[in-house]
């Protein structure tokens, strides 16, 4: 049994790094997080002839010139400066055979690290198709390290690669290309001025990377003295004719060119590849845009079509479990916590999973086949107007379905500021959970008899347009203020098309689902339980009687008398019918029966009424009552305020809360705007619409200004971040509580101002 070795996998984006990683480590993977940065590194393990090899997959990069803390993690890890990880014993540099000139640049930097390096030349099939021939022995000789040709997606050469890795471990480290003597002298002198613990590699990087992360870090550590030393060093190099940063590119590329010239034979004329032919269509302004729109349309159609049955399944599963628990436990706070807090909360987490996984399946396919870069290229012109790049398009568009997969999809954006701006504005897009709110309020106040038939559609469209216009504006504002910085260097490579690998797509889907459930799910669950408690406690009325018990008793009474009530109702209805000609008048209700019917109907409404009384007296209800002055400028009363506050963990809750507060009982959100909902659920929705209308008509403000109030609620919901799940995901994706807090505050403020303006302007127009 040999000693275990640690191997780091480094390569340019699109070099096939993840494919190689998956091929080597199979299913034994886990994701490593690093404090303070947003990067994740996947770690895996495999054994070869009794040697345990742990493999670290570093983020794809074009060079080791770190510009941000995120990029520095990889460099530190390779130098053994991360306390969480041992220093790699071997670095595998994976390069693309069809583009050796550029990929070997990074290899030349890796040779300076002082660690044995093995070069894996990937995609030899594509290179052969382009007519390239290689002399690997010669290449290995000029680079000074072992070179192994591989085809990662079908496993060719992997055995030779593992052998080369095991042989390389423990051997002497190679040397990179020789820099001009003047550079070595300057670097040596600077090293002397610093303490010994700064590796030579970093000292040299600090000289080369003007304004880079190493420079910032060293200046922070050594102060202005180092800054002047650096400037002096760079001046000296410039006078010697080796100005930075050009000296690095010249030195390394000259070295790469010599190595490639000796080992690679290229055909005189580069053949037109498949990628070129496909690109003629897909990057065309007209045809490419059409194809892109078609792809997006198909993607969202499938998300809605495929996710819906799964989401319904999760919903009904949740109902079944809730019913089971209700049947098996005596009523009381514990049962209510289980049923209304935990089971509903878990359901509320799981219900997002189908959408997230389907979207990530699509993203994985589009990225792996190389189309994503083309889409970003096409959309860049539009997105650059709001200070973002084409890569922000898919996350923003995904947020129309749901902000959670949208925020997670922002992972494809490498630029940290762009990624943050995208994440922060994604929740402004009108997601599908806002739809029931819009439909309910439009149904109650906009689509009144007498109003034009096109109006509801226009209002709904306007609500979606709020998101589409405000999100880019906020993005622009953020990029100009909070997230301001040197304009991001937007350079993007359009990789060659290749066939996506099924297993890697599945892996991405699973990873996204798992990350969401595990890390965001717990926070969502907690938020749901908190609001449940705020609406549940205190649960005794003025006489010290328990509301849940009273409700249950009232419900039992309703059940007992249901048949009697129905019979009486039927008779009553019949008695009002006009008798057909020649037939006797239908029997009328006796006075006793009339009194009984009235009593029973009242009893039937009692559970809903008690529930309303209880929620109004609950902690949240009381806070709402106390906060009424805050809601007043929006045209709201405390009921609307409480419903809006109760909806902060999940906005679709408002419909149900409205139902409880307006004494019509729990209303199923799914029944709104759904033609296939069962009759009872539809009746509840109609009842709620009517109850809201009735309640408002009694009030001087809302009676006269019903439409502005309804619009003000809709605008509030359009702009507010009423979704604990989104906030939890933002926390998880940005790694800090700062950004979800910021999102919550700015969106709530925006929503308040928006609702305020809507109501005040509406009131002015109504007169």
């Amino acid at each position, binding site marked *: 049994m040999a000693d275990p070795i640690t191997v780091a996998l480094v390569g340019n984006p699109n070099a096939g790094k993840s494919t190689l990683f998956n091929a080597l480590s199979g299913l034994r993977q886990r994701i490593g997080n690093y404090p303070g940065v947003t990067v994740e590194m996947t770690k895996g393990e495999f054994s070869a002839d009794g040697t345990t090899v742990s493999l670290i997959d570093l983020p794809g990069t*074009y*060079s080791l*010139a770190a*510009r941000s803390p995120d990029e520095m993690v990889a460099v530190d890890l390779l130098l053994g400066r991360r306390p969480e990880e041992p220093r790699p014993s071997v670095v595998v540099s994976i390069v693309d055979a*069809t*583009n050796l*000139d*550029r990929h070997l*640049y*990074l290899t030349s930097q890796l040779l300076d690290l002082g660690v044995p390096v093995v070069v894996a030349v990937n995609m030899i099939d594509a290179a052969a198709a382009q007519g390239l021939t290689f002399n690997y022995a010669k290449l290995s000789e000029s680079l000074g390290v072992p070179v192994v040709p591989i085809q990662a997606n079908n496993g060719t050469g992997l055995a030779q690669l593992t052998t080369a890795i095991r042989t390389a471990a423990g051997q002497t480290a190679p040397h990179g290309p020789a820099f001009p003597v003047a550079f070595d002298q300057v670097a040596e002198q600077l090293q002397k001025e610093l303490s010994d613990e700064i590796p030579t590699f970093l000292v040299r990087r600090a000289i*080369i*990377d*003007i*304004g*880079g992360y190493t420079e910032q870090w060293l200046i922070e550590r050594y102060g202005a003295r180092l800054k002047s030393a650096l400037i002096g060093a760079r001046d000296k190099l410039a006078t010697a004719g080796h100005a*930075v*940063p*050009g000296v*690095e*590119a010249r030195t390394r*590329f000259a070295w790469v060119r010599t190595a490639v010239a000796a080992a690679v034979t290229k055909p005189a004329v*580069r053949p037109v590849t498949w990628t070129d032919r496909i*690109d003629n269509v897909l*990057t065309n*302004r007209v045809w490419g845009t059409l194809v892109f729109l078609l792809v997006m349309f198909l993607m969202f159609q499938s998300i809605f079509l495929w996710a819906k049955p799964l989401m319904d399944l999760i919903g009904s599963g949740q109902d079944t479990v809730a019913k089971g628990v209700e049947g098996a436990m005596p009523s009381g706070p514990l049962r209510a916590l289980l049923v209304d807090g935990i089971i509903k909360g878990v359901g509320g987490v799981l219900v997002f999973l189908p959408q997230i996984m389907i979207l990530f399946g699509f993203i994985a396919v589009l990225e792996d086949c190389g189309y994503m*870069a083309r889409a970003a*290229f096409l959309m*860049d*012109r539009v997105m*650059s107007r709001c200070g973002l790049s*084409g890569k922000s398009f898919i996350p923003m568009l995904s947020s129309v379905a749901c902000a959670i997969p949208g925020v997670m999809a922002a992972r494809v954006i490498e630029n940290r500021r762009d990624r943050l701006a995208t994440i922060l504005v994604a929740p402004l897009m009108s997601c599908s959970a806002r739809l029931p709110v819009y439909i309910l309020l439009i149904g109650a106040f906009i689509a009144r008899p007498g109003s034009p038939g096109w109006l509801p559609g226009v209002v709904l469209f306007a609500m979606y347009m709020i998101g589409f216009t405000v999100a880019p504006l906020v993005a622009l504002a953020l990029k100009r203020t909070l997230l301001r910085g*040197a304009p991001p*260097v*937007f*350079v*993007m*490579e*359009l990789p060659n098309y290749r066939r996506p690998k099924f297993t890697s797509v599945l892996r991405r889907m699973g990873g996204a689902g798992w990350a969401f459930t595990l890390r965001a799910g717990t926070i969502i669950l907690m938020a749901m339980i908190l609001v449940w408690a705020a609406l549940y406690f205190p649960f005794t009325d003025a006489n010290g009687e328990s509301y849940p018990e009273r409700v249950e008793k009232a419900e039992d009474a309703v059940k007992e008398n249901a048949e009697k009530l129905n019979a009486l109702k039927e008779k009553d209805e019949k008695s009002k019918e006009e008798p057909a000609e020649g037939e006797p008048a239908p029997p009328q209700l006796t006075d006793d029966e009339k009194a009984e019917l009235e009593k029973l109907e009242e009893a039937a409404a009692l559970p809903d009424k008690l529930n309303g009384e209880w929620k109004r007296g609950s902690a949240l209800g009381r806070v709402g009552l106390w906060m009424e002055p805050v809601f007043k400028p929006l045209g709201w009363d405390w009921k609307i305020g409480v419903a809006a506050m109760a909806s902060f963990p999940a906005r679709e809750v408002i419909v149900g809360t409205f139902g409880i507060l307006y004494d019509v009982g729990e209303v199923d959100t799914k029944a709104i705007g759904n033609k296939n909902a069962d009759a009872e659920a539809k009746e509840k929705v109609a009842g709620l619409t009517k109850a809201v209308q009735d309640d408002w008509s009694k009030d001087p403000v809302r009676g006269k200004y019903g439409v502005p109030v309804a619009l003000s609620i809709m605008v509030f919901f359009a702009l507010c971040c009423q979704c604990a799940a989104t906030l939890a995901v933002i926390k998880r994706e940005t790694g800090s509580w700062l950004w979800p807090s910021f999102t919550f505050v700015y969106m709530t403020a925006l929503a308040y101002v928006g609702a305020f303006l809507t109501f005040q302007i509406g009131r002015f127009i109504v007169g």
Partner: protein
Amino acid sequence: MLVPLDMVRAGEWADVEEVTGQADWVGRLAELGIRQGSRVQVVQPGATCLLNVAGCKLCLRGGECSQILVRPVAG
């Protein structure tokens, strides 16, 4: 004749003579193969343009292209 890269028309080739601008940006472009002496083809000009650099397609912004000075190659 030296011209900025954004003035080269679609399909034309050019040799890069000088990349100006922030050191960070110059360094990044050099890593990607756009540096003095390299030959590039403008596949698609515009606000976001598409370049062919050593058989590899790169896209960058038109405004940034104006910082790359090139010598168009005849033919």
